[in-house]
């Protein structure tokens, strides 16, 4: 093989290999995914998995899941317990006055696929569960990863997981899927 062709062939292959390695390597994102740990026993990967964990770590467009969400999170009944608020309604309003409403499943999880609602930030949010209502006091300015900020337990750095009922309020009978 002439020298020029060998050079081009080797350099091209090497370049492609290098680009592939660099393009897929994000150690910060990889570490965030690893920090989520394994699936809970008995709960396979799916709509009911990982309640309370930051959904967009995997579903935010960087992988490992190819299913991209604009919003994702979990609603719990109470601040001090992990009982899910299944069948709660999430109301969203973006900076362009577009609204979107969806519901939690029986695990308390909800998500909005990116094609369904690609918002203009900032975004306001509220939750309703039967007659109980909570309006988020601040706005979302960065992304729709609710559980990224709403980390249990409540501390100076986190408002705690998303909850809807005051401690003495009984859990309503609301159907969920």
């Amino acid at each position, binding site marked *: 093989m002439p020298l020029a062709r060998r050079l081009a062939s080797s350099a091209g292959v090497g370049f492609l290999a290098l680009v592939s390695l660099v393009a897929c390597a994000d150690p910060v994102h990889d570490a965030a995914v690893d920090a989520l740990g394994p699936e809970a026993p008995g709960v396979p990967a799916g709509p009911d998995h990982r309640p309370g964990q930051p959904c967009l770590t995997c579903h935010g467009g960087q992988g490992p*899941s190819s299913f991209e969400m604009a919003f994702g999170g979990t609603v719990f009944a109470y601040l001090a317990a992990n009982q899910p608020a299944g069948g709660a309604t999430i109301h969203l309003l973006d900076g362009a*006055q577009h609204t979107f409403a969806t519901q939690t499943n029986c695990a308390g999880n909800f998500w909005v696929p990116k094609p369904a609602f690609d918002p203009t930030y900032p975004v306001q949010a509220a939750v309703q569960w039967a007659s109980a209502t909570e309006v988020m006091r601040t706005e979302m300015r960065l992304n729709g990863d609710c559980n990224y900020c709403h980390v249990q337990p409540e501390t100076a750095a986190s408002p705690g997981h998303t909850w809807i009922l*005051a401690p*003495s309020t009984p859990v309503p009978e609301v159907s969920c899927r």
Partner: protein
Amino acid sequence: MKRAPFVGSAVGHPVAALALALALLASGATVVACSSNDGVGQGRDYLGGEAGVATCPVVNGKCSSSGPSYAADVAPILAAHCTGCHGPGGENADVPLNTYDAATAPKVKIISASLVSVCKMPPPPLPSLSADDIATLRCWYAQLHPAK
């Protein structure tokens, strides 16, 4: 023997060729990992959603002389849209709207109708009241002695 440049010799050099092959394998594996399709949330079990645009209904028209009644007309609206916050256990329980006396307190009477009319209440992103509901509350609060 002609000495070829290092890069150019990679194809012919066995060690370099092995290194290239390993790099190719690694890049291929990485590409697969980055684009994994684990099937999570692939539309199945998605509960769907309702998209819309936030608007505030324009309410005109006169109030009837008899006016709405609290029990039949106003209480259901307040229960559906207001007492979640403005009731026991709500975050605005200090301004209750869950009883006739609470809803007709002087301060509430002054403020409520105006806030509802311009869709400041319920606060966004909660859906605003319908034109009929706004008209009902406006007319009820406009009465000198709101009918029970």
